[in-house]
């Protein structure tokens, strides 16, 4: 009975999130240097608007909006998975240094010209960087002897992240000035380089990975009561952890390859959704995908309009929104709430 009510409530919430997501996408397509009314946006998407409007909406804004939606979905779901895996509401790809590791991988590929060899060189290099980073962070936390202690994990993540950001700046010193400018975008994150090609590359990797992570929602629920209990409830914990770490590293790596290291999406979105609908991952993961996507589309719309004709790195917008939430969570966590 109560279960039935919960299922209906989650279905309604998800329907609401779909509508909100569509609204954010439409706003993202309407707003910019030239304001396009919603009717003309819809016409352009159907291919019936005039050529100039089609160029603005479909050629310029649509790839950027789609990339932001994909990356937002990927980062928010990865955040929720890290939080369940580490049983820590503060865990998030950026805070854990995983995004910075992916950015080092991506910048390495660019500086050494590997991107010319294959369109997959960039995401694969970023994936490897993400795997290296999460392995280092977990090894540091384990070496400190306190397992998954919040302080040690956060400290390890911050230190590894700082180290990787320094590596990026070191690497770009071997490159030309243009690459140097681009490196700042890797560190802060931006969708200004979005193209239909980058949308496709991210979609090819991230969407299947998100489906797989979504199918692991139930064992992920069990992980939140501890690995020992999950093991005795029938979860092959070692195998699940391997799957989840590889899966999230892939998602984070490819997202970072598409747009740089954008922070706090994976923190703010799952937290807000847990407050609204609880922490059952069967609802939380799809909700994170929708809300993360919508949130990042909205954040990017702000980033490219608020100081027009210049634009802010989108990571600045998400950090301004995310840091207060992070601090609030940290204080609550310390109080043992």
């Amino acid at each position, binding site marked *: 009975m109560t279960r039935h009510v919960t299922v209906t409530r989650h279905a309604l919430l998800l329907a609401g999130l779909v509508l909100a997501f569509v609204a954010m996408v439409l706003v993202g397509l309407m707003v910019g240097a030239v304001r396009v009314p919603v009717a003309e946006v819809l016409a352009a998407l159907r291919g019936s608007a005039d050529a100039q409007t089609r160029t603005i909406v479909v050629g310029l804004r649509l790839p950027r909006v789609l990339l932001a939606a994909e990356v937002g979905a990927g980062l928010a779901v990865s955040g929720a998975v890290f939080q369940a895996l580490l049983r820590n509401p503060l865990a998030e790809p950026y805070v854990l240094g995983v995004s910075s590791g992916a950015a080092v991988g991506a910048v390495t590929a660019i500086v050494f010209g590997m991107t010319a060899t294959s369109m997959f060189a960039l995401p694969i290099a970023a994936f490897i960087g993400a795997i290296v980073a999460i392995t280092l962070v977990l090894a540091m936390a384990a070496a400190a002897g306190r397992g998954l202690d919040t302080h040690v994990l956060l400290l390890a993540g911050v230190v590894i992240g700082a180290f990787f950001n320094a590596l990026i700046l070191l690497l770009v010193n071997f490159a030309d000035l243009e690459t140097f400018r681009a490196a700042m975008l890797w560190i802060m994150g931006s969708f200004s380089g979005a193209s239909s090609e980058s949308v496709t590359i991210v979609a090819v990797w991230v969407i299947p990975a998100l489906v797989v992570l979504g199918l692991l929602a139930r064992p992920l629920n069990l992980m939140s009561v501890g690995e020992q*209990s999950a093991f005795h409830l029938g979860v092959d914990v070692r195998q699940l952890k391997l799957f989840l770490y590889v899966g999230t590293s892939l998602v984070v790596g490819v997202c970072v390859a598409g747009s740089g290291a954008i922070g706090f999406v994976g923190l703010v979105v799952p937290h807000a959704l847990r407050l609204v609908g*609880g922490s059952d991952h069967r609802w939380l993961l799809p909700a994170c995908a929708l809300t993360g996507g919508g949130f990042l589309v909205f954040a990017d719309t702000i980033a490219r309009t608020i100081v027009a004709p210049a634009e802010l790195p989108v990571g600045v917008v998400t950090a301004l929104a995310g840091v207060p939430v992070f601090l609030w969570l940290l204080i609550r966590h310390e109080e043992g709430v």
Partner: protein
Amino acid sequence: MSLFELRDVSYSYPSAPRPALDGISLDVAEGALFALLGPNGSGKSTLLRVMLGELSTSSGGVTYAGRPSDSWGRREIATQIAFVPQAEPMAFPMTVRALVEMGRYPHTGILGRMGPHDREAIDEAMERAGVAELGGRSIRNLSGGERQRVRIARALAQEPKILVLDEPTAALDLHFEMETFELMRELTEERAFTVVVATHNLNLAARYATRLLLLAEGRIEALGSPEDVITAETIGRVYRWPVIVTSYEESGPGSGSPQVVPLSEAVSSTPG
């Protein structure tokens, strides 16, 4: 028929000076209430972890229902053996019913769609563990004793053959402790469960368990009925404290079982 069979099982933790378990052989018979006793650091938890497949033995074999325990898949074994930990993390808020529903994981498919039998199993488990009225409460707002009963309900929802509990009453007051032991007896006597419980409470173990194992420094010190295991000499030696053993003489279950009374230090130092 014995469900668990351990043959000459040893286990050493990496870089430990002596083995945590040394040549343990035992059988846990179906329907038994099997109590695992021993001082702190005697290897009780290690023995449980080896029996439950969390640790692989350094030497010797563990079989469950006649099959080597490492040949069972995780989901498969979880429909046979349920474990109640002493405590577990609560990273995110969750209702009592959601926690008990986790017990159906090994019985349901990838989406966790539950049929009428699953819901019945959950209702019955909550009823039996005495948490039926707590279903909608947040697990974080419960007392330690209530949380422990919710974890027992989750284990029962797994519909296992064996329930394994690791010091289930260590943090509980007398009321919850007695309720837990009464529940364990009810499960073995009326519901054909087998229960394995690690505990520090020698007297309740002597009253409620059908078979006792006393561990000391990773070895079996005594194994048998309460009368065989709970003697003043054995308990005094293993726990390094003088005790006398009396008898529980109230009528009803457990009547006549040995009861340990530790003496005070002054008595022990008195000559004679």
